[in-house]
């Protein structure tokens, strides 16, 4: 269900690029705005690279501001916001109904790429096959047209947004196979698959690189365009969440505004994610 929601949002807002350039030019004299202080962000490791870029862009405009970005996983992002341990938590999935006490701000849409070793002859799997592989129904690559080798499933840790979204979209009611190797960040998961010709895992589109191969899902390539077009269905929102009982600090609010501004959304796009407005 959530996949559809995000698609609509994405479709809604395209035409901002021109304004962004202007804004950037207008804010060349940074001293004047007097924005200073520190905000901390924690949570999703999938959102983290994007947050870093956004923070860097923001700080180049407001040199007295300090944006500390750290990881921990989406669960940590939610609890950090709930506990006020961070100003903003990053969550790489839909926020569940029972995760209360927080305001949610969607900042981008991301696809989740199903990845295998580059040498793996398999290039395309259906959602059903992926589900069967991750739940232990299919255990050999030959069952999906590959070599006669046992499949090594690599997954993320409990609390990961990527895992949460992946399970929502792909796994349905099925449980992850118990023998799965567990890695606690997108990066280490990718390294783990890159090192194992029989491995399969999943990472943020932004975390895709040429050490691994992103599989087609139902014959659709995992690209931002395909996500945007609604053809690649394994996608999820990137959210910033904040504590709803305390107002955002001025700086945090300014950052959030920046992220959602044309300029911020440009950064989102440059990083290979999909804009939300």
């Amino acid at each position, binding site marked *: 269900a959530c996949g559809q929601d995000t698609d609509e949002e994405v479709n809604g807002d395209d035409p901002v690029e021109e304004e962004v350039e202007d804004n950037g030019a207008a804010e060349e004299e940074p001293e004047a705005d007097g924005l200073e202080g*520190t905000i*901390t962000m*924690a949570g999703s*490791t999938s959102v*983290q*690279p994007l947050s*870093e870029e956004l923070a860097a862009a923001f700080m180049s405009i407001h040199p007295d501001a*300090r*944006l*500390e*970005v*750290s*990881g921990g996983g989406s669960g940590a992002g939610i609890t950090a916001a709930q*506990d*006020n*341990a*961070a100003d903003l938590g990053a969550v790489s999935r839909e926020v569940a109904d029972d995760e209360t006490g927080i305001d949610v701000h969607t900042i981008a849409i991301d696809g989740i790429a199903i990845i295998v070793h580059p040498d793996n002859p398999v290039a395309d799997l259906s959602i059903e096959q992926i589900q069967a592989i991750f739940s232990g129904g299919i255990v050999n690559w030959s069952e999906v047209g590959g070599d006669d080798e046992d499949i090594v499933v690599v997954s993320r840790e409990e609390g990961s947004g990527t895992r949460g979204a992946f399970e929502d979209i792909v796994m349905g009611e099925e449980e992850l196979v118990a023998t799965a190797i567990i*890695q*606690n*960040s*997108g*990066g*280490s998961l*990718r*390294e783990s698959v*890159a090192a194992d010709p029989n491995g399969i895992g999943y990472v943020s589109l932004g975390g895709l690189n040429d*050490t691994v191969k992103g599989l087609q899902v139902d014959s659709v390539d995992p690209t931002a365009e395909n996500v945007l077009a609604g053809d690649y269905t394994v996608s999820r929102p990137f959210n910033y969440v904040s504590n709803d009982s305390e107002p955002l600090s001025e700086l945090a609010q300014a950052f959030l505004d920046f992220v959602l501004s044309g300029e911020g959304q440009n950064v989102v796009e440059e990083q290979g994610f999909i804009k939300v407005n």
Partner: protein
Amino acid sequence: MSKVKRNQIIAYSLLSLAAALTVTILLAIVFYIMSRGLAMINLAFLLEEPRRMGAEGGIYPAILGTVYLVGVTLLLATPIGVGTAIYLNEYIREGLFKKVIRFTTEALAGIPSIVFGLFGFIFFVILLRDITGGWSIISGSLTGVMMILPVVIRASEEALRNVPNPLREGSLALGTTRWYTIKKIVLPLAFPGILTSLILSIGRVVGETAAFLLTLGGSLLIPRTLFDGSRTLSLHLYMVAMETGNMDMAFGTGAVLIILIIIINFLAGALFKRLIKRFS
């Protein structure tokens, strides 16, 4: 050759083999890390800020973070640790209180660092965030203090015990107070030993990761105050390796860490020799 002689030769060969194996393992690790890491190290690597979560750029903030964390941790742990050692060794005698402190320091020493991390997270990062700034160097340091306290206490006690008793009695018999005797006689003589223990605790702080993973926050920015989040070199190595998968950067950081540890061990060794000399 008699059987016992043959046994001896076999046994000693095996023992030498074990020693050779240990040395080989050490050299293999050091050389491997160095061979992949030294190539990364240059001025820019040391003095630039990281980009793309540390996959590019340098490690300067991590170096600064390490220095600050070590500095603050030692600044807090030294008086507490040395003070405890003085109290245990110079003021009280065997008894319940001493036993309790002994037991708790032993227990502290045994607690896995991840448990310190858990505690530090709940207590310093969340509960005391208005004071500590949440994830921050202060939170990390306070957690680090708890971790190295047993090391500092134990080593300082050892150093104090090495101060010959006749000197203490000589001073007290001159009608000086206990504290004066400690200040003027005991502490100066125990100083190299205490310093050695402090240097070794630097090693412990530099090498620690699990406790700081949950308390330092891992920000890549250059820390400006002690209430800013930060990361140490070890934490940086872990995050770069695990989050970005850029092993070359990780090896570069690893090489810096190993060089640092070698320097620390060397300093501690040199001081220890001085200590031995002083008391013989």
